[in-house]
């Protein structure tokens, strides 16, 4: 228990004096996750909507695939990403290994199944009257899709939040593809792992508490947004 206490105190100390290393890692965790989730949202919402409303051969299998994809361990994504981006790997020439962009790419695939699955679920379960109303009021395909997404926006917000929390706190991808390079690819998660491994348990606890705070802060913010949306 002392460890947790020490860690808590250390966490406040680190934030209080704006410890540059910690701030740097926190900012990196933040923008990498945000970017990854944004890209995954663009692609994932489209895929999820398509899967929900268009019938084609193999649709059921794809849905199952994305659903299963939600449970992929981050170390697996990290390993596969490493193998692909390695100097000797097929994507080596892209030079993305041990860069933050590599982490973004990996986290993109972490976020994608979550967003696809939630979007698909929400749109499949839409009241059939929505489509009929839009149709009989003369909405064209684009407008109808905008309407569907508008109707399920709560589910989509939740999906984005879940995906963000997952990306913000994950370790496997950031470590294997990022490499924990100071001031370059060190995230809060990899910094935590490093501090713990070096015996700096208090700092390690402090970092992981910061991770928790960060994720909780965003969760509350989005929950607030969703509640105000609901009430209106």
């Amino acid at each position, binding site marked *: 228990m002392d460890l947790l206490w020490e860690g808590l105190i250390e966490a406040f100390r680190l934030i209080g004096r704006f410890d540059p290393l910690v701030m740097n890692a926190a900012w990196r965790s933040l923008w990498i996750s945000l970017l990854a989730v944004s890209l995954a949202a663009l692609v994932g919402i489209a895929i999820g909507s398509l899967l929900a409303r268009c019938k084609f051969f193999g649709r059921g299998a794809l849905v199952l695939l994305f659903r299963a994809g939600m449970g992929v361990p981050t170390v697996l994504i990290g390993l596969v990403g490493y193998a692909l981006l*390695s*100097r000797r790997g097929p994507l080596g020439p892209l030079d993305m*290994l*041990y860069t933050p962009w590599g982490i973004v790419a990996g986290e993109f695939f972490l976020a994608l199944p979550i967003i696809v699955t939630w979007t698909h679920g929400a749109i499949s379960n839409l009241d059939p009257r929505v489509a009929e109303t839009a149709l009989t009021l003369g909405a064209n395909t684009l407008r109808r899709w905008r309407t569907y997404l508008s109707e399920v926006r709560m589910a989509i917000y939740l999906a984005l939040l879940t995906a963000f929390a997952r990306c913000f706190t994950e370790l496997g991808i950031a*470590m294997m593809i990022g*490499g*924990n*390079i*100071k001031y*370059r690819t*060190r995230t809060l998660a*990899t*910094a935590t792992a*490093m501090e713990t*491994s*070096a*015996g*700096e*348990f208090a700092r390690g606890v402090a970092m992981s508490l910061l991770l928790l705070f960060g994720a909780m802060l965003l969760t509350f913010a989005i929950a607030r947004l969703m509640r105000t949306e609901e009430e209106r």
Partner: protein
Amino acid sequence: MISSRLLALLFCSLLATATLIGCGSEGASSESQVRGEVPANASAASGVLRLATTTSTRDSGLLDQLLPIFEQKQNCRVHVVAKGTGAALKLGESGDADVLLVHARDAENEFMDAGHGIRHQEFMHNYFAVLGPSDDPAKIRGTTAADSLRKLAQAGEHPFLSRGDDSGTHKRELALWKEIGVTPTWDEYLETGRGMGPTLDMADQKQGYVLSDMGTYLKFQDKVDLVPLTLKSSDLKNPYAAIVVNGEKDSRINTELADALVDFLISAEAQRIIGEYEISGEQLFAPVLSLGQP
């Protein structure tokens, strides 16, 4: 179609079984594997020795040669925890390890001065080397470690991977920088905060330079396109020491077995094994007993 009730029943019984197994006698050691430590009361009661060492020592594979012999002689089990030097020393400090195998002389001296250890015994050494790509763009081949670092700092453009984690290797690197009075600040001086193996891999991926112990290097030789470039010099010598943790800290500390291990390490048998241990046909460590050259 299996009914959903049957499936639910199956799942619950699987869960229950797993829980029971987990809580059984295996539970203690599997938990310790997660924590990296043996339960506190294990040492004194039965023949279990808690050994803390560095990742590079473990990765060299030498312990896999030596420890089984010791375990058989003493009819005990040795639980090895490998972390960074700093963490290993901390485990000694808190009494969570009985014996330490480390290689960071300054930190070791501090540890002994503070009274955390009651016996300090050097038992082998190897060398560090600055590794780099075979085409050596910075042209440090054949220089001393100090000169090579100076050249790299002056060029200021080649990637250099530093451990950056307070490990024995990192401390040696910092000592070298101090020796030449240079602070590495160029863009491509990268601190990884990771173990030697991953750091070597990163040096390979970037085709940059890195200070490594030869043990880990020889182990990863086949996997990385890096070669040792510097000469063996005294400032690259890397002595390994065994430290018996001060038993007065805690009754759980098994000083008897710890002492026995240290005695074993400097015995003729162990020293011979150390001298003969090779990876890819190259000797990794030099024993301290003069069975050949030191």
